[in-house]
């Protein structure tokens, strides 16, 4: 909420810029795991996508000369690693909100029919692999529905609610990912999750880097300013992954604060109450509301907090879901598309740059729409629904109608979140990951006997939470299993026991499938569409 946000495009309104420089930054930021053809496609198409949004009416902030306002973000450079670039377009501090409204208005104009209070349960897939729609539940009545469609596009967001500490709203339960896994499709690169270093414990609200930019610094329980030990030069202003790892190290070493030793303090009161009120008013509001602390008087408790999922449902440049079906690792799944955080095209690779997530969903959302139009033209006749189209969803719904007696869903969800936080957080290690999988096996076994107390039909949120947990658990499993197998450190995936990046063995994407926790791999697409490959090299800033 407090993030400044924006959408990155090399418009060159503030500093000289080039889409090719944006591409370089994105490839480097991804720690060379991003597919370079997809990254070129995204960065090349970024300016036209932003102008299209502008013409639709998105109220971008403006420079004095009337052009779209752009601000500098971390990881942005001119001339392939040179001076800081100013590349991220913004509509004040609510770009995502403005984008949502602009696109919603376009849908109204196009007379799109919304089924607002419906919850998608599962994909309907026939024996030839075609996706023919989804099963769903009407939330107001509890009634099951089948939506028959020649094209289905998943835009269901990420699943960072698998972690105890998450910046994500509660609706981010990764439903599309669960649907994909149950339909026999793999998830790509699920070991890569971005952690923001300074979230408020339990709540998850972000305390922006701007606090440290104004002179704030981190303290452990011994009142020691510890960042100079980890980043002697940049100290508290080091990059997100570096600061997150440092905080995690302090907590693991028993130097965390609070009764459970699971956070550190961000001290900022020394810059003075007037300065805080003038320059950080929003952060002060957040801290007082959600941490119960006025930063003018006391330090803010913070901890690394799961923020963004780099992996997801594998897609190609057209937003079409791809899977190793019969002839190769990237065969299109007919009738199925995925866009946004739930998808992995992969432009973010092992680490996402700020400003690239809105761009990802806009560029590939448009590409998916264009491809879907062609697909519908080429496939004008609906295929016959399989006789068992509703069986999976009906079974899932009926399962939660059992009488009460077993464990409750919220307790199991909390346990899963604790397991992921403790065993697959900022730092990973073989023994920790294996123990995490064992514990998760136990939670999954107990889910089989779990119950909900409310069996009513109207807006039954207890049932929804149970169905969401059925999606979160396989995402948690995919994360743990994928993280255990990747014996290197790359981007957001930090293995204590394998601290170095290993391009000889791991310049490849993970593909996790639910059946027997199967892992497959496919090579990173190092060849861009038209330009030369950016060869992997050490990622330093």
């Amino acid at each position, binding site marked *: 909420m407090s993030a400044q946000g924006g959408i990155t495009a090399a418009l060159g309104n503030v500093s000289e810029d080039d889409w090719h420089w944006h591409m370089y930054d994105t490839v480097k930021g991804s720690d060379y795991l991003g597919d370079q053809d997809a990254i070129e496609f995204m960065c090349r198409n970024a300016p036209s996508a932003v102008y299209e949004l502008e013409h639709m009416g998105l109220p971008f902030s403006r420079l004095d000369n009337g052009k779209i306002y752009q601000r500098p973000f971390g990881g942005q450079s001119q001339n392939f690693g040179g001076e800081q670039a100013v590349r991220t377009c913004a509509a004040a501090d609510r770009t995502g909100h403005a984008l949502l409204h602009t696109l919603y208005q376009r849908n109204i104009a196009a007379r799109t029919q919304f089924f607002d209070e419906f919850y998608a349960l599962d994909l309907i897939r026939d024996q030839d692999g075609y996706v023919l729609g989804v099963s769903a539940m009407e*939330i107001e009545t509890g009634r099951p529905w089948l939506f028959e469609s020649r094209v289905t596009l998943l835009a269901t967001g990420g699943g960072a609610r698998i972690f105890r500490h998450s910046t994500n*709203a509660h609706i981010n339960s990764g439903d599309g990912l669960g649907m994909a896994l149950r339909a026999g499709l793999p998830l790509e690169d699920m070991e890569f999750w971005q952690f923001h270093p300074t979230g408020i414990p339990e709540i998850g609200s972000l305390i922006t880097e701007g606090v440290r930019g104004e002179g704030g610094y981190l303290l452990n329980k011994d009142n020691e300013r510890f960042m100079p030990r980890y980043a002697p030069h940049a100290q508290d202003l080091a990059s997100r992954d570096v600061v997150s790892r440092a905080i995690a190290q302090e907590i693991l070493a028993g130097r965390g604060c609070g009764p459970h030793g699971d956070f550190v303090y961000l001290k900022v009161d020394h810059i003075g109450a007037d300065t805080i009120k003038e320059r950080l008013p929003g952060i002060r509001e*957040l801290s007082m509301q959600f941490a119960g602390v006025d930063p003018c008087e006391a330090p803010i408790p913070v901890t690394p907090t799961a923020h963004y999922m780099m992996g997801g449902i594998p897609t190609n440049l057209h937003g079409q879901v791809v899977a190793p079906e019969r002839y190769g690792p990237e065969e299109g799944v007919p009738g199925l598309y995925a866009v946004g955080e739930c998808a992995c095209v992969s432009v973010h690779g092992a680490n996402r740059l700020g400003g690239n997530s809105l761009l990802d969903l806009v560029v590939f959302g448009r590409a998916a729409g264009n491809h879907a139009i062609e697909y519908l033209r080429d496939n004008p006749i609906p295929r016959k629904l399989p006789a068992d189209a509703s069986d999976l969803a009906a079974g899932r719904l009926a399962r939660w109608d059992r009488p009460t007696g077993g464990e409750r869903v919220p307790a199991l969800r909390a346990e899963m979140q604790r397991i992921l936080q403790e065993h697959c957080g900022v730092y990973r290690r073989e023994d920790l990951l294996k123990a995490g999988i064992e514990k998760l096996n136990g939670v999954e076994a107990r889910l089989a006997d779990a119950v909900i107390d409310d069996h*009513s039909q109207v807006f039954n*949120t207890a049932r*929804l939470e149970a169905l969401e947990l059925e999606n979160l658990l396989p995402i948690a499993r995919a994360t743990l299993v994928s993280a255990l197998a990747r014996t290197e450190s790359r981007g957001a995936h930090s293995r204590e026991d394998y601290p170095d990046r290993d391009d000889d063995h791991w310049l490849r994407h993970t593909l996790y499938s639910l059946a027997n926790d199967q892992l497959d791999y496919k090579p990173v697409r190092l060849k861009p569409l038209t330009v030369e490959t950016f060869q992997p090299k050490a990622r330093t800033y």
Partner: protein
Amino acid sequence: MSDALNRLRWRCQRGMLELDHILRGFLDTAYPDAAPATQRAFEALLAMADADMLDLIMGRTEARSAEMADLLILLRRHE
């Protein structure tokens, strides 16, 4: 649980984490015993867009009615 309360619980699920916490906290702890005017103000609040709602709760914009102003005080207390 009553259908009406379930409906409100559903509407407390928002696109912002901070709103999830504030709204669910209030619904679970204070709403059932709140005065009818406060309950009506809460239902009116839930009809707002996320960003507008947060501006109100954080005090960046002013409530347009006394009932809403009273509700906002309670919401901030019950997070």
